[in-house]
């Protein structure tokens, strides 16, 4: 792994390998989740479809076709209470280019053109483009309800974190997006270039030095003032809250939000990951093997651990009439883990399974990029192997102790209003 500081708060991480047939680059730019979230959320989409050199999405798309179908995708993520603008590029490795083309380097230039040299209208973005991207972002936000599983999770997060920055939707809200002006978005773009903490992660066989040179040159013209990023961890236990909504659907969705009591991302995080996995991770977990398989209480039931905020979200798909039973059983299974009521086999299964999937990250460029990109705010990066070593050293009692600190915060139930259409076949 090659590490290099490109500019103040800008880090390049490159894994040089010819194992893959592609070159993959991720550029992640992190800012705090705050009132400017909507203005920032629209940015990657404005930037990825055009630039000063190729001013509309059709022209740019044709350029990408000529670069052997190189693909660019942009998105926004929430990690802890940071808002990350993420750009990904995949192109074929130069050894497959037909006319001695240097595809990878051209793609890096192109990606930089999109981010640093967008299509501008004075000190703003063109009004027609902003209007179109606003329409698309509003549709994307509204369409988040289409996937009921994700929608229920999102609603539970909104409720649970309504007094915390974590409760802000990474895409912003429909009203905020509708109210955005081109000037505001342009200012958000300038802010991101100046203040974002940036990591560029690269996996492929290309030479890292010319890439670093391009990036250094692009950042050289910016007066950098990197922002400070942090996430509030709440350990205080309150009376659990329950909210239920109805929709015309067939299968109910039950989401339970829990807090781990962690004080920061590294606080007891490895034992906690194992505790959550034994509770609701793999097929050996309590939620899968007991609640789903043995008791048939739900079609799916699992727990996800978000170390970046110290929370656990349990998601399940149930029949509405099973709601009480499912809730009680899920909590019962958590208390069993906290009482140490799991076998040595379950414990070793969990460590083996987590280790296996972490080590497997080495085998796709996407997962290698993601592995390092998620560590962008850390001073030093862990390899999958180093993380796996930490898993091996965890003892059973640490897992029990970790499980004891998990407590229920919020329950969100999405149930049928009895109007789901039957098939008109």
């Amino acid at each position, binding site marked *: 792994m090659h590490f290099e500081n490109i500019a103040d708060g800008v880090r390049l991480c490159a894994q040089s390998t010819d194992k893959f047939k592609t070159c993959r680059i991720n550029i992640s730019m992190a800012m705090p989740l705050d009132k400017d979230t909507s203005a920032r959320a629209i940015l990657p989409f404005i930037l990825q479809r055009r630039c000063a050199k190729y001013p509309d999405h059709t022209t740019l798309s044709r350029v990408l076709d000529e670069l052997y179908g190189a693909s660019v995708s942009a998105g926004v993520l929430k990690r802890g209470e940071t808002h990350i603008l993420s750009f990904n590029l995949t192109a074929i490795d130069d050894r497959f280019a037909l006319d001695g083309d240097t595809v990878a380097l051209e793609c890096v230039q192109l990606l930089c053109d999109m981010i640093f040299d967008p299509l501008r209208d004075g000190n703003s973005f063109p009004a027609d483009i902003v209007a179109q991207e606003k329409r698309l972002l509003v549709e994307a936000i509204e369409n988040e309800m289409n996937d009921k599983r994700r929608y229920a999770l999102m609603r539970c997060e909104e409720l649970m974190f309504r007094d915390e920055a974590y409760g802000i939707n990474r895409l912003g809200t429909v009203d905020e997006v509708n109210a955005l002006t081109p000037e505001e978005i342009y200012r958000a773009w300038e802010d991101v270039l100046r203040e974002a903490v940036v990591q560029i992660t690269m996996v492929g066989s290309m030479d890292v030095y010319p890439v670093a040179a391009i990036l250094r040159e692009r950042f050289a013209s910016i007066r950098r003032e990197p922002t400070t990023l942090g996430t509030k961890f709440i350990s205080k236990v309150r009376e659990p809250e329950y909210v239920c909504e109805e929709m015309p659907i067939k299968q109910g969705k039950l989401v339970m939000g829990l807090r781990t009591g962690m004080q920061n991302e590294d606080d007891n995080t490895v034992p906690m990951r194992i505790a959550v996995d034994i509770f609701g991770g793999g097929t050996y977990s309590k939620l899968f093997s007991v609640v789903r398989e043995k008791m048939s209480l739900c079609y799916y039931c699992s727990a996800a651990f978000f170390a970046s905020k110290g929370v656990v979200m349990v998601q399940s798909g149930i029949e509405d009439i099973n709601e009480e039973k499912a809730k009680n059983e899920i909590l019962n299974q958590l208390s069993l883990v906290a009482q140490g009521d799991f076998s040595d086999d379950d414990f070793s299964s969990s460590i083996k399974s987590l280790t296996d999937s972490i*080590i497997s990250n080495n*085998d796709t460029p996407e997962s290698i990029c993601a592995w390092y990109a998620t560590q962008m705010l850390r001073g030093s990066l862990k390899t999958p192997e180093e993380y796996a070593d930490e898993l091996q050293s965890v003892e059973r009692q640490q897992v029990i102790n970790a499980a004891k600190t998990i407590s229920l915060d919020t329950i969100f139930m999405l149930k049928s209003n009895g109007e789901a259409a039957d098939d008109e076949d």
Partner: protein
Amino acid sequence: MMKINEIRNDLLGEMYFDIDHPSGLKILIMPKAGYTSTYAIFATKYGSIDTMIETKDGSFREIPEGTAHFLEHKLFESEDLDAFERFAKTGASANAYTSFDRTGYLFSCSANFKENLEILLDFVQNPYFTQATVEKEQGIIGQEIDMYKDIPDWEVMFNCLRNMYHNLPVRIDIAGTQESIAQITADMLYDCYNNFYNLNNMVLAIAGNTTVEEVLEVADRVLKPVEGKMAQRKVIEEPREVLADYCEKKLSVATPQFMLGFKEEWDTPERTAKEEITMEILLDMISGPSTDLYKRLFDANLINNNFGFEYFTGFGYSCVLFAGESNDPKTVAEEIKKEIKTFRENGFDEKVFERTKKKLYGRMIMGMNDVDGLANNMAVSYFANEDVFTDFETYKTVTVEDVREMLDKTLDERYSTLSVILPN
């Protein structure tokens, strides 16, 4: 003597072993240098479209819709430890899926490969069905069927297929219906198992951190030779016309969703690699992100980022599907049909054709990184009597004239249908 062939592609720098195992099973192995994980899939040519089972006298008898998927769920169980419990001891991540034309059991792991392979081969070869466990599963799968009814992408597609086809089983949901799965019995599952899960109807495809020796050491020991043959599929009569040219359904979505389908008619039940690739190029030239049509629809606020197309083919069926989200699906459908007409009249630009091929070349290479994708492609190619490099070689032979001819035979709006999901 076991026959081991090497299948190579020099440009890609890839090779894999094609083995006719004495048990009757086809085994395909692609060792990948530098990879830490291995992915294996054990698949049978038996999917949701197989609603007929061949009897001893060569005639066909009907089985309930959704049986292939039901069997997939049940095969994980055994008299003592179920397959998930066995994989839990090794750390592998295991799963299974049923598609229209195959069922696959798979795992990926970065340790204990031989042990995992043994579990996979063993549990798939040892069915254990009882009436009690079948009844329990009816409840679980019933829930799964309900869950899919809340997923708009799924509903818009099956409504489109149901509009298009009168008789072909591709029109039915992969999991079947509450009524059809209620008819399934343990005996029926054994019948289907014996017919479709004989090793001659199956393939084992593996890619990643392994060797031929390692795989055969396990396969020789665990595979039980069987009598049997490749199961035959019955050709089902299907009228040329679509059943209905429009349907809509209400679901809780924000933006309406649509799928526009063009039904095709061919003399042979399956499309060749060349036909598939020619169609991919044709569709990308008409409606891909670089086209005038795409720009027009996008700039008129008629589509968003979720617009795309698919050449949807399998045994007995082939159709083109355009799908997306739009506040005015009917206008989008009309615009697509108009554009097709324009291409029929004006033909294709040679330069655009070359650019599209260049993109396709790159995308095929990009698709060859991941062991899961490679192993699945090896299995699918085998069932199609091809190898995993066939597409890569075939695309070179496609000419703009092929594209023109393909358009002459397909995308006929008289045989099209529009399925829409509206917000409720």
